[in-house]
C-alpha cells in the first residue's frame, strides 16, 4: 500500500455479550484507501466487529483508533464513517434523490446544492438522471445497490463499511456488482471495509482479507496468500472443497498419515510443527499410471463423478477416506465408477496447516 499511517487501528478489540465473547482480542491495521474484507461463517463475530467499527455497538475492551484518535465511545452519527446495510435500508417513503440527499439534508445543506450533489453521484454510479424522482421501492436490485452506495458516498465518509450487501442477490448480478464495487473503490480512492461469508466474493474484490473464526481474526493476508498459504485447516477449508489428511511430523522432513499407514513427502513444515493436516486442492490431485509419476501416491476406487460446468469432479475412495479430484472438462479422465485408480500429488502441491 502507501507509506501513510493506517487509517484504522484495532487494538485488542473485544466484545462480550453476557457470557458469550463475540469478538475476541482483535488486532488489525487498515491502510488508507484499502479494500479490506472480513470473511467468516455466520456466528464468527464479523457482524459484531463491524457494528463496533460503525459505532452501533460499543467495545467491551480494547481500542478503535481512527487516524490515531480513539473513537470507541463515539456513536454512529458522530463518526465520519458510513455503512451500506445488508438489507440496504433504503427509506421506502422517499425517492431515489431524497435517499441520496438524506445526510445532506440532516447537515442543513440547501436543496439546490443537495440536488446537484445527488445528480453527480447518480452519474458516477451510472444511475439514469430521471431516477431522481423515482420511488426507491420501484428500483431493481442492482439499482437499489447503487442508490444505497450513493447515499453512503454523499455522507463523504472516511471509511465505507459494507455488511454483506450482495448476499441476497442472484449469482449473475452479484458477479457484475462485485466488479462494479471494485471499480468504484478505485474511482473514489476511499477505504472500503467489507464483510461477507463468501471467500469467493472476498477474493474478487479485496486488497487484503481477514478470516474470522469464533470471534478471532485467524489469518490476514492478500487473496493470493489466503488461497495458497492458509495457516490453519479452517482457513483452507473455508476456500472450498479441499482434501485434508490428518498427519504428524515423522522426524525425517515428511509427515506420517496414521489413517493410511504411510508417510508422505510434504512441504517444509512451520517451526515447531508436530501434528496437523496436509491439504491438497482437488485440482492439484491427478490420476497417475504408476507410483513413480508423483511423489505421493494412493490407491483407491472411483466412487462417483459430477459435471461442474467447465470442470469435472471425481470422488475417489481410499479406504473410508473420500478424495476429491477436479479436472478441466478437456482433460477429463476416462475412468468410470468403481475403477481402481492411483491418485497422486507432489509435495510442492500440498500445504501443511495446523488445527
Amino acid at each position, binding site marked *: 500500500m502507501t507509506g501513510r499511517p493506517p487509517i484504522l487501528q484495532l487494538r485488542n478489540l473485544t466484545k462480550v455479550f453476557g457470557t458469550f465473547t463475540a469478538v475476541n482480542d482483535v488486532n488489525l491495521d487498515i491502510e488508507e484507501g484499502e479494500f479490506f474484507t472480513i470473511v467468516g461463517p455466520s456466528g464468527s463475530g464479523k457482524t459484531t466487529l463491524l457494528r463496533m467499527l460503525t459505532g452501533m455497538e460499543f467495545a467491551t475492551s480494547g481500542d478503535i483508533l481512527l487516524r490515531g484518535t480513539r473513537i470507541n465511545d463515539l456513536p454512529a452519527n458522530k463518526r465520519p464513517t458510513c455503512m451500506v446495510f445488508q438489507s440496504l435500508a433504503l427509506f421506502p417513503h422517499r425517492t431515489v434523490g431524497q435517499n441520496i440527499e438524506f445526510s445532506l439534508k*440532516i447537515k442543513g445543506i440547501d436543496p*439546490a446544492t443537495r440536488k446537484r450533489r445527488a445528480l453527480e453521484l447518480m452519474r458516477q454510479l451510472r444511475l439514469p438522471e430521471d431516477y431522481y424522482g423515482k*420511488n426507491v421501492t420501484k428500483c431493481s436490485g442492482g439499482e437499489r445497490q447503487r442508490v444505497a452506495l450513493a447515499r453512503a458516498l454523499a455522507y463523504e465518509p472516511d471509511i465505507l463499511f459494507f455488511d454483506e450487501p450482495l448476499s441476497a442477490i442472484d449469482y449473475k448480478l452479484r458477479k457484475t456488482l462485485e466488479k462494479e464495487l471494485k471499480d468504484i473503490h478505485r474511482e473514489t480512492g476511499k477505504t472500503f471495509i467489507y464483510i461477507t461469508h463468501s471467500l469467493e466474493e472476498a477474493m474478487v474484490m479485496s486488497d487484503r482479507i481477514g478470516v474470522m473464526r469464533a470471534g478471532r481474526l485467524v489469518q490476514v493476508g492478500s487473496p493470493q496468500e489466503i488461497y495458497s498459504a492458509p495457516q490453519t485447516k479452517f482457513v483452507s477449508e473455508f476456500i472450498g472443497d479441499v482434501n485434508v489428511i490428518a498427519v504428524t511430523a515423522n522426524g525425517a522432513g515428511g509427515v506420517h498419515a496414521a489413517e493410511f499407514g504411510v508417510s508422505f513427502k510434504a512441504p517444509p513444515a512451520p517451526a515447531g510443527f508436530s501434528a496437523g493436516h496436509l491439504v491438497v486442492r482437488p485440482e492439484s490431485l491427478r490420476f497417475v499410471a504408476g507410483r513413480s509419476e508423483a511423489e505421493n501416491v494412493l490407491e483407491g476406487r472411483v466412487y462417483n463423478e459430477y459435471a461442474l460446468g467447465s470442470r469435472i469432479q471425481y470422488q475417489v475412495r481410499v479406504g473410508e477416506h473420500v478424495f476429491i479430484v477436479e479436472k478441466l472438462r478437456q482433460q477429463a479422465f476416462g475412468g468410470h465408477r468403481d475403477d481402481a485408480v492411483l491418485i497422486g500429488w507432489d509435495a510442492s502441491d500440498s500445504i501443511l496447516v495446523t488445527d
Partner: protein
Amino acid sequence: MNSSADRMRRALIWAWTAAVIVFMYLPALGLVLASSTSSRYFIFPITKWGFDWWQKTFASLEIHQLFRTSLLIAACVTVIAVVIALFGALAFARYDWKGRSIYQKIVLLPIFFPQSVLGLALLLWFNALGFTMSWQTAVFAHLVWIIPVCTLVISIQVYSFDPALEEAAFDLGATKWQVFREVTLPVLFPGIFSGALFAFLLSWGNFPLSLYTTGADTTLPEYLYAKMIAGYTPGVPVLGTVSTLGAAVLLLLGYFIIVVLRRRRSAGSDEAA
C-alpha cells in the same frame, strides 16, 4: 360436468353474498326507512313518508350538544390513544427486552374485559378517588379500552418495520429525534393513521363505557338508548342514521387518504428539492 359444478359454485357464491348483504346491511337500511316517516311511531309499511323528523332533529339544540360532546370525547381519545399506542406499539413490536411478553399481555388484556364490567369498575374507582363523572372521565374510560386496540393496530405496521432503517439514518448523521421524525414516523404513518381511525370510531360508537362514566354529560349512543327505552320518536332512527353515516363517511375518507398516499408514494412524487 365441469360446467354444472361451475354453475353450482357460482350460485352458492351469489347466495352467500346476498345473505351477507341482507343480514348485515339491510338492518341499517331499515333505520333509514324508520327515520323517513312523518308519523309518530314506526309502522310498516310506511303510510306517510316525509323528512319532518330530520328537520326537527337538526334544529334541536339538545342534539347539537350531543354531537359536540361525542365529538369532543372521540377527538380527545383519538389524540391521546394514538400517542400512547404508538410508543406502546414500538415497545411492543420493535424492541426486544426482558419482560416484553408479559408487557404485551398486560397491554392487550383490557380488550377482553366485558365493557359493561369495565365501565362499572371505572365508575367505582373514580368515585373512590373523588372525581365527578363528566366527559373527561369518559375520555379516560374510553382510553382504557381503546388504547389496547389502537396499540394492536399500530403494532401490525411496526412488526414490518426494518430496524436497519433507523440505524441507517443514525449512521448518516441524524440525531435520535431526527431519526424519529424523518424515518420512524413517516414509515409508520399508514399504521398510525389506521390506529387513529379505529380510535375515533370506537369512541364515537361506544355505549357501555360512556353509560357509566359520562355523569351529567350525554353522548349520542347514550341518548339513543335513553330514547329507545323511554320516549321513542322517529328522531331516534334519524340520529342513528346520521351517526352511522358520519362514521361511514369518515371511514371512506380515511380509505381514500390511504389510497392517495400509497399511490403518491409508489409513483414517486417530485416533492423533493
